[in-house]
């Protein structure tokens, strides 16, 4: 005959269905004589029955199945197809690179680089480019090595603000663009100047040269003034070979 303590140890195995028939018989025999163990086991069995059979949970909404299936349909059709996946494969690295570049642009402005500071402090009046570090060093130990005027000038020199990384990166590009723009403006100016000084109508100058050559002693200015272009066009005289009207202007003109 088993004791109450032994019986309680067997409860779990009994309820799990893992108790051997011999031990089951022992347990049943004990229950017949022990009301407490009988009630306890009955309580556990009742708990199991209530949990298993008492379906008192609220019900799912009637449209649940339809909602799941429509969500599944969306899940299936919403996936990117083969082309979409390809776009993602190509686009993802580009997007990643763009993100990194953006992050650098946003974060690195806080990183400031010291650039060379131009100070006018030499005794001879020249302009000296001194790096910031050297300038600091000079400021610390300039009592004996620098002249008084240079020191005063150095102190007067306004400290230039530190350069941002973005400026340092884009400065050459901006400079190149400015040079190109300035070259184009210069070329336009040359064109205008040439047009005003006779480039627009070389015939007139050439005819003037020819007539001056014909007249010999006549001054070019007078010849030019007496030129009748309408007459010239009508009679087509023998023109001298075409030469550049203004050699220096032609050299300076560089459309490219």
């Amino acid at each position: 005959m088993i004791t109450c303590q032994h019986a309680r140890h067997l409860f779990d195995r009994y309820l799990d269905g893992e108790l051997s028939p011999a031990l089951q018989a022992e347990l049943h025999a004990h229950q017949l004589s022990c009301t407490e163990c009988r009630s306890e086991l009955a309580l556990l069995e009742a708990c199991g029955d209530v949990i298993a059979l008492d379906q008192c949970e609220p019900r799912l909404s009637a449209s649940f199945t339809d909602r799941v299936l429509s969500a599944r349909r969306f899940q299936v059709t919403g996936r990117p197809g083969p082309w979409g996946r390809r776009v993602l494969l190509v686009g993802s690295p580009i997007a990643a690179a763009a993100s990194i570049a953006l992050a650098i642009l946003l974060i690195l402005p806080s990183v400031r680089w010291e650039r060379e500071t131009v100070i006018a402090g030499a005794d001879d009046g020249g302009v000296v480019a001194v790096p910031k570090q050297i300038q600091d060093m000079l400021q610390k130990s300039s009592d004996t090595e620098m002249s008084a005027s240079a020191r005063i000038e150095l102190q007067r020199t306004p400290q230039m603000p530190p350069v941002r990384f973005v400026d340092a990166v884009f400065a050459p590009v901006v400079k190149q663009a400015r040079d190109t723009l300035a070259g184009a403006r210069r070329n336009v100016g040359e064109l205008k100047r040439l047009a005003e000084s006779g480039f627009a109508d070389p015939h007139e100058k050439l005819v003037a040269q020819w007539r001056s050559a014909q007249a010999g002693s006549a001054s070019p200015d007078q010849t030019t003034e007496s030129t009748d272009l309408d007459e010239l066009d009508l009679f087509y005289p023998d023109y001298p070979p075409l030469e550049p009207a203004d050699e220096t202007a032609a050299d300076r003109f560089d459309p490219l």
Partner: protein
Amino acid sequence: MERVMFVRQAENGSCRLTRLAERHLVGQARKGSEEAARSLVDAHKDRLFAFVWRILRDHEESEDVCQEAFLRAFSSLDSFSSEYRFSTWLFTIGYRLCLNHLRRRKVLTGGEMDFGEIPSAGPDVSECLAESEEARRLKNRIWEAVDKLSPPQRAAVLLFYREGMSCDAIAQTLGIPMATAKSHLHRARGHLRSSLAGLVQDWSQLRILRETAS
């Protein structure tokens, strides 16, 4: 397809798919059959919802978890092995989602979650209980005791009694060793025993309770 052939009546009255039916439906759903998916949802939704609701005790959250569990199960049908039951797989997903929700709840409440303070089901629970006032009171006390169990213990108890799973299947579903699953189950029984001690003096009352429950 004769659906009746694939359905068997479970002990607790709910219709459950046979293993053959389950395999067939899973195969069809894998090929994209919406009808098969619908059958799988219909066959499992109530059981899964009851299990999830018992752990979360929130209707909307439980519905969301069930829907998510079905969607995840369907989206990874290719990796599903037919060695296992679809229900086991589904309950595994549901249980993990429940734990995620409980963790989120714990984060939102900003402290330790007292699982014993989960609100009771309310008047709709008592409506479906047995007619006997005494039996209803006892059942309420039992469910209150179940609600005070920790989530793993509650899950183990529900899977064991409601789903009729073995300790091995419970371990598989909860993703824990079998010894741990047994430990959860035994500790849960111990808690129930201590919570309900003194509740029933006469075991004949329990017999009535068991009869009304069934």
